[in-house]
């Protein structure tokens, strides 16, 4: 027993003799908070919903390419469909003619799953959609609660596999952005894609699973100096994971919309 434990057991020896107390203070309201605690969940709800709505539209919309820009939601296009002629990676189309649904459906499950199982997004939608809890010290409306202990939420534990795919997707978006800059260094779209790629990479490498894989799982940092350095870097990004989650979510929507508007000819100026 360490000194702390000794201290603790001495402290607690008195409790068995004390009368059993089971009653909490009866406070009959859901919360006594007086601030605007509902504001953050409300804004979060609207922000995440707008992303979902935009995502559905982007999957259906077909103007996803205009030389040299590829809309991030469509990259890489894996089908032989004409609509994504330019959005293929090295002209590669592993999915054949039989596939007739929107091409975006094939790829969006991966970044979508990455965000859906992300520790930060989990927090944000548990709070804003499921109200569990909507805000701290605000009683949740559900009678029973088992958290992530059982199906379906126990599946959140596969997050790291989405992280592996997310690294690949981050690399593809970076490649697309670099190509755009090479082909059109003065195009506003090129730099929008670059900014988006940077934010996406910042978000991806700040992932808690990434932090765990680099060195979080080790107990002896000093025996693994390189991994420890990587962990220190990832930890810095990780501390900014929430702002990066929002920034990269809006940048990917913004960049995607921009490319589509250029492709549709709605945005048209020499350096577009």
């Amino acid at each position: 027993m360490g000194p702390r434990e000794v201290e603790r057991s001495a402290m607690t020896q008195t409790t068995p003799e004390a009368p059993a107390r089971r009653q909490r203070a009866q406070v009959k309201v859901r919360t006594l908070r007086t601030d605007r605690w509902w504001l953050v969940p409300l804004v979060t709800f609207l922000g995440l919903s707008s992303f979902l709505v935009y995502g559905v539209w982007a999957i259906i919309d077909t103007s996803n390419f205009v030389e040299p820009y590829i809309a991030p939601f469509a990259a890489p296009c894996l089908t032989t469909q004409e609509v994504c002629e330019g959005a293929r990676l090295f002209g590669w189309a592993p999915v054949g003619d039989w596939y007739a649904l929107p091409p975006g459906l094939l790829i969006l499950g991966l970044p979508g799953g990455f965000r859906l199982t992300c520790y930060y997004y989990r927090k944000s939608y548990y709070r804003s959609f499921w109200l569990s809890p909507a805000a701290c010290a605000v009683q949740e409306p559900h009678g029973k609660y088992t958290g992530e202990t059982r199906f379906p939420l126990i599946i959140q534990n596969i997050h790291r596999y989405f992280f592996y795919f997310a690294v690949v997707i981050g690399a593809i978006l970076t490649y697309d952005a670099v190509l755009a800059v090479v082909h059109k260094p003065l195009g506003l779209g090129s730099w929008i894609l670059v900014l988006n790629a940077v934010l996406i990479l910042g978000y991806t490498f700040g992932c808690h699973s990434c932090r765990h894989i680099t060195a979080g799982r080790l107990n002896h940092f000093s025996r693994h100096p390189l991994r420890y350095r990587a962990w220190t870097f990832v930890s810095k990004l990780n501390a900014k994971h929430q702002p990066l989650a929002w920034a990269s979510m809006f940048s990917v929507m913004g960049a995607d919309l921009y490319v589509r508007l250029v492709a549709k000819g709605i945005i048209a100026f020499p350096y577009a």
Partner: protein
Amino acid sequence: MSYKAKFKVWRGEGGEGRLEDFTVEVNEGEVVLDIIHRLQATQAPDLAVRWNCKAGKCGSCSMEINGKPRLGCMTRMSTFSEDETITVTPMRTFPVIKDLVNDVSYNYQKAREVPSFTPPADVRPGEFRMKQVDVERSQEFRKCIECFMCNNICHVIRDHEENKPNFSGPRFLMRIAELDMHPYDVADRQETAQEEHGLGYCNITKCCTEVCPEHIKITDNALIPMKERVVDRKYDPLVWLGNKIFKRSS
């Protein structure tokens, strides 16, 4: 500069009680605990409140002020406007003894259930060799003053009394993470964190981090890393396979 502030303080024994109204003098520089003491001295001599250090270091004066868990001794009156009514109640998650004093024995019970530091049998005291970077992570968790506000705000037990037997609360899940990250601890913490201490109940909504008066990043630095370690142990087929192969070849 002093003014009269309106207070509502929960008074009662056991669970029975109500909010009582007070109008009380407030002077510049005072904290909520000072006002509670003034009430004791002037209007409510039997008002029960627990406190010790008045310096935010003993963790005794946890209470809920305007619905939020706070240390009474660290909550300045200047954070409220003069016409605001300030509501003070005991912590909601634990039984109440009298007025603002909670019975926090749930926490001591949970503390006892975490096996203490377990070094390898063949390392004798004096033979431990660790570098600063090896213990840095756990040092953050040692800043804990055991105010139990994190366990109090955690909705897993705050809103669901029935989860108490299965959930140790952020304070003790963090203690488990501290020991699991310790270079010389050999006890199995990962399996028990999930199966006995209820790590899976935590949905990482971070209220514990929001209330911690020591600003410990409980969720980011203890609970999520611990969840990832549990994934290694229980849910990741690749790690499982890797461990098998590695053990066989070594």
